[in-house]
């Protein structure tokens, strides 16, 4: 089996586009996960049983079904009830929703890592509920969540190839196009894999920088 460098060279622009698309899906999906994950955390902490229990069920349901099935559902089933999403939108929603359930777990652990004495001191100073959260609890819970969150960022990125199934033009989609045109499967798939590897390294480096900068309770 020989390695054809000229095929590789010609593939690079297409591959670059694929990487950008993958990053777009990652960043947007992770943003959805961060926001929705917080909403999930609040819903599960609700004092109202009729909110807490059904949402605990919904969250468990999302977490326990495969991402691929969820993506198929969003992209191929929803149009049948009149909701048509672009491939990228379906991918972002799918990744975001799926990872929100994990992120919510991270937030929960972060909040529970704040010692009870902090809540008590906030009560002793008569801080409002809102200020207790925004000034005392979250500033301590969020930094403690950052290492786990940065792991999930990389994990989410590595789930992006599943978006091939809903025709998002990420690197593996591009690689399959290339091999269909040229039958150079070896180069195409290897290059797509390398693109993921390099980008994942960059993302986890970025995660570590954020961790170092914001991962401590006091700076």
């Amino acid at each position, binding site marked *: 089996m020989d390695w054809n460098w000229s095929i590789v060279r010609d593939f690079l622009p297409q591959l670059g586009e694929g990487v950008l698309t993958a990053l777009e899906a990652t960043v947007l999906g992770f943003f959805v996960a961060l926001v929705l994950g917080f909403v999930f955390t609040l819903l599960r902490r609700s004092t109202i049983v009729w909110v807490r229990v059904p949402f605990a069920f919904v969250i468990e349901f999302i977490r326990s079904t495969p991402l691929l099935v969820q993506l198929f559902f969003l992209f191929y089933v929803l149009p049948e009830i009149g909701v048509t999403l672009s491939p990228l939108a379906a991918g972002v929603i799918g990744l975001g929703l799926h990872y929100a359930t994990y992120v919510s777990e991270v937030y929960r652990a972060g909040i529970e890592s704040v010692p009870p004495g902090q809540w*008590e001191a906030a009560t002793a100073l008569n801080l409002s509920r809102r200020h207790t959260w925004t000034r005392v609890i979250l500033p301590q819970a969020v930094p403690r969540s950052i290492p786990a969150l940065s792991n999930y960022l990389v994990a989410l990125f590595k789930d992006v190839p599943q978006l091939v199934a809903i025709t998002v033009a990420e690197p593996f989609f591009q690689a399959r196009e290339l091999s269909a045109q040229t039958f150079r499967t070896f180069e195409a798939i290897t290059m797509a894999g390398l693109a993921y590897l390099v980008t994942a390294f960059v993302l986890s480096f970025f995660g570590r920088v954020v961790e170092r900068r914001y991962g401590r309770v006091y700076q």
Partner: protein
Amino acid sequence: MTAAADLITFDKVCKSFGGNRVLDDLSFSVAGGERVTLIGPSGSGKTTILRLLMTLLRPDSGTVSVGDDYLFHEKRNGDLVPASDAHIRQVRSRITMVFQQFNLFPNMTVLRNVTEAPMLVQGKSKDEAVARARELLDLVGLSGKEDAHPSQLSGGQQQRVAIARALAVDPDVLLLDEVTSALDPEVAADVLDLLRDIAKTSDVTMLCVTHAMKFARDVSHRVLMFCEGQILEDGTPDQIFGNPREDRTKAFLRSVIDEA
């Protein structure tokens, strides 16, 4: 203290933890400006009283009042109903607490620990809050530590900041929950000296749970000896420490002094 109006009143308060009755139909009052030390064996309900007053716990039955207000109840159409959060917050604004484990906010500097509540809760301006905080930090002997974080301070220093933080909200009632139990004896003695000074120069009502009997004797107007969720003996420090009536009190005082 003579003829001062009752500021704090417990009326037939019961509190159990999982079948274990910690406060048993407890009634007592504390006058405004009075400094009261609660003593007694562990599990006798002293800390529970402070935690109820701070609303960190709710009573199972009975009422607690602060001034003219019930802490956990409101009068509505002549009926006593469970209080709203807003009512509890309003009554609670007169009370604050210093904890055994300091509980400073680690995400804030020393200065912000002291200015946060005055600014957020009492609506003081930043300048006013900062000026008062500097005064209080000076009082507790920590001028120059404004920009430090709690983790950079020793235990004794952290507790001094916690005392400044509590005084910054101008409480009518200051609750001290074993505030020197987590400190080395020498450091504890310094913190107690500071609290003696504060007691002498302010008219804040103090409820104090402590094992530091000499401190209790020096600062209190009144000592309450607790046993099994009830008040066993109630008297002046001289009477309780010098001439305890109950055998149980004598035994307790002996054990505390042996330990010290």
